[in-house]
C-alpha cells in the first residue's frame, strides 16, 4: 500500500478512536464504543503491516502471537477487584513499548543514514524518557497495590532534592545527546537509566491509596510517550491517539483530585498517609449483632447502601446485591450511594456492583443522595470509611477536611460493617462510629451481609 492510502486509513482509525471515546460517555453505548475503538486499532495495525515500510514479518509474528496470548490470558483471569493492578501493568507495558520504539528509531536511523538529526534526537529522547518513567513508575504502583512492596509512602530526607537532581541530570544528558545523538553513546544509556530511576523515585513517596491518581497520571504519560514516538517517526496516528490518551489521563487525574479535595502537587509530593495525625475521637461505640440489624432492616422502607474499599477487599458485592433484592422484595426502596473516590480507583464501586448485576440506574451519586439522606431509614456502610467521615465536613483541623462525603450520619440509622475500629486509608479517626444513630456490625463484610441474608430467609 502506498503511504497515501496508509495515511488515509490512519484517519479512519483516528475517527474510530474518537467515536469510541465519545460512546464511552454513556453506559448504554460504552461497550460498542470500546469495540469501535478496538476496530480502529485493528485497522491501524493491518494497514501498517501492509505498508511498504514492513519487509520482515518473522519477528513480528512471534511477538504479536506471544503478546496477544499474554494480554488475553491476563485480561480473562484477573479478578474484578484487582483491576487497578491490572491497569498499572498494562500501562507499564505501554510505557516500555514507547521506550523501545524510541530506541529502535535511534539505532535504525543511525545504522541507516549514519547521522541522526537533532529533531529526531529530541523526540527519541522524549519517548525514551517518558516511556521509561511510565514503565518503572507503573511497576512500583503495581507493587504497592498488590502488596508486593509495603504500600505506605516511603519518605526520607532530601527526597525532593534527589528527584530534582535526577530530573536535572536527565535534561543535561538530553541536551548533550541532542548535539551528538548515537545509540551506543554513554549518554543514551545514562538517559535510559535515569528515566527508569526517576519513575521509581517519583512513585515510592506516594501512599498506596493514592495509586489510582498515579496510574491515571502515568497513563497520561504513556499517551505523551506515544506522541513523542509519533514525532520521532513522523506518524500521525501515534500523535492523535497519544494526545487523546494524554488528555484523558489528565482529566481523570483532575477529577480524582477534586473529589478528594487535594491538589495534584499534594498527592504527588506530600507523602500523604505516611504520618498519622493525632486527632482522636472519644465516645461510646454501639455494636449490633446480625439478628437485631435484621429487625431494623426488615422494618425499613428505604435503605441506602454505601460501599467502600472494604467491599472490594471482602468481595462482598454479590451478597450485597442479594440483600438488596431481598429488601426490595420486602417492599423497601433500595439505592446504592457511590462516592467518586470510594475504593481504590475512580468508578471502582460501579464496576464491582455492575459485576454483581446491580442495574446502573439504581446507583446514585453523592450529591444526589445527600439531600435525601434525612429520609433514609437505614444507611448501610459496607467497608467504607473516609468517604463517610463527617470530620471531612465539620472538623477544619482534619487532614481530609473539605473532601465531599456521603452524609450517612444524617440518615435515621447508620449501620457500619467493618472488621475493627481501624481507620481508613487517610488514617484519621471517624466520628461517625461514635454517632448516636450509628450501630457497628463488626466482622468481614461478606460474612456480615451473608448473616443478614440468612436472617431474611
Amino acid at each position, binding site marked *: 500500500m502506498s503511504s497515501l492510502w496508509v495515511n488515509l486509513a490512519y484517519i479512519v482509525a483516528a475517527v474510530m478512536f474518537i467515536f469510541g471515546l465519545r460512546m464511552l460517555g454513556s453506559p448504554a453505548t460504552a461497550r460498542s464504543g470500546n469495540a469501535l475503538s478496538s476496530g480502529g*486499532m485493528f485497522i491501524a495495525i493491518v494497514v501498517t503491516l501492509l505498508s511498504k515500510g514492513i519487509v520482515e514479518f518473522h519477528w513480528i509474528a512471534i511477538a504479536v502471537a506471544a503478546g496477544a496470548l499474554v494480554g488475553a490470558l491476563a485480561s480473562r483471569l484477573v479478578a474484578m477487584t484487582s483491576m487497578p493492578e491490572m491497569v498499572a501493568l498494562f500501562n507499564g507495558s505501554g510505557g516500555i513499548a514507547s521506550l523501545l520504539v524510541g530506541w529502535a528509531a535511534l539505532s535504525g536511523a543511525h545504522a541507516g543514514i549514519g547521522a541522526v538529526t537533532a529533531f529526531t534526537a529530541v523526540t527519541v529522547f522524549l519517548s525514551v524518557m517518558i516511556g521509561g518513567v511510565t514503565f518503572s513508575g507503573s511497576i512500583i504502583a503495581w507493587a504497592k497495590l498488590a502488596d508486593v512492596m509495603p504500600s505506605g509512602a516511603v519518605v526520607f530526607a532530601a527526597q525532593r532534592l534527589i528527584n530534582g537532581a535526577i530530573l536535572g541530570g536527565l535534561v543535561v544528558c538530553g541536551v548533550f545527546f541532542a548535539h551528538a545523538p548515537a545509540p551506543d553513546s554513554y549518554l543514551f544509556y545514562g538517559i535510559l537509566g535515569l528515566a527508569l530511576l526517576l519513575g521509581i523515585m517519583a512513585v515510592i513517596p506516594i501512599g498506596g491509596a493514592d495509586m489510582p491518581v498515579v496510574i491515571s497520571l502515568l497513563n497520561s504519560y504513556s499517551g505523551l510517550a506515544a506522541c513523542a514516538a509519533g514525532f520521532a517517526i513522523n506518524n500521525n496516528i501515534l500523535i492523535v491517539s497519544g494526545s487523546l490518551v494524554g488528555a484523558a489521563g489528565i482529566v481523570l487525574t483532575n477529577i480524582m483530585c477534586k473529589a478528594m479535595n487535594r491538589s495534584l502537587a499534594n498527592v504527588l509530593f506530600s507523602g500523604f498517609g505516611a504520618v498519622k495525625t493525632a486527632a482522636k475521637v472519644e465516645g461510646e461505640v454501639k455494636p449490633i449483632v446480625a439478628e437485631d440489624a435484621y429487625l431494623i432492616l426488615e422494618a425499613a422502607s428505604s435503605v441506602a447502601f454505601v460501599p467502600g474499599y472494604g467491599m472490594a477487599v471482602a468481595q462482598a458485592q454479590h451478597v450485597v446485591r442479594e440483600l438488596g433484592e431481598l429488601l426490595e422484595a420486602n417492599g423497601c426502596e433500595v439505592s446504592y450511594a457511590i462516592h467518586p473516590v470510594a475504593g481504590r480507583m475512580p468508578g471502582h464501586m460501579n464496576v464491582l456492583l455492575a459485576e454483581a448485576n446491580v*442495574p446502573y440506574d439504581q446507583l446514585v451519586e453523592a450529591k444526589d443522595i445527600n439531600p435525601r439522606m434525612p429520609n433514609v431509614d437505614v444507611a448501610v456502610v459496607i467497608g467504607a470509611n473516609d468517604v463517610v467521615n463527617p470530620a471531612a465536613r465539620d472538623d477544619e483541623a482534619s487532614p481530609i477536611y473539605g473532601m465531599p462525603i456521603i452524609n450517612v450520619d444524617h440518615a435515621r440509622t447508620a449501620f457500619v460493617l467493618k472488621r475493627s475500629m481501624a481507620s481508613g486509608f487517610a488514617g484519621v479517626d471517624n466520628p461517625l462510629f461514635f454517632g448516636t444513630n450509628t450501630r457497628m456490625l463488626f466482622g468481614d463484610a461478606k460474612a456480615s451481609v451473608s448473616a443478614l441474608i440468612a436472617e431474611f430467609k
Partner: protein
Amino acid sequence: MELIPVYLAFILILAIFLGFELISKVPATLHTPLMSGANAISGITIVGALLAAGAGGPSWLATLLGAAAVFFATVNVVGGYLVTDRMLGMFKKKPDESD
C-alpha cells in the same frame, strides 16, 4: 518539508483539546473502564513498533528492540481492550419486569 513538524504540532494540539472535551463528558460510573480503554488506545505505539521491527534495515539491534516493543504493545492493546470489554459487559440496565 520543513513544515511537517508544524502540521504535526497542529494535529497534536487539536487532538489534545478534543481529548479534553470528550473525556470531561464521561460520567463517574464509567471512569474505570475509561481508564483501561484509554490505556488500550495508548497501545497505538504498536504501529511504531511494527515499523521498527519489520523495517529489515541494516541494524539487527533495531529489529530486536522493535520485536520486543511489538510484544509489549500487543499485551497492552489486547489486554486493555479485552479487560475493558469484560468490565463493560457487566454494566446492565435494570432488566424488564417480564424476565
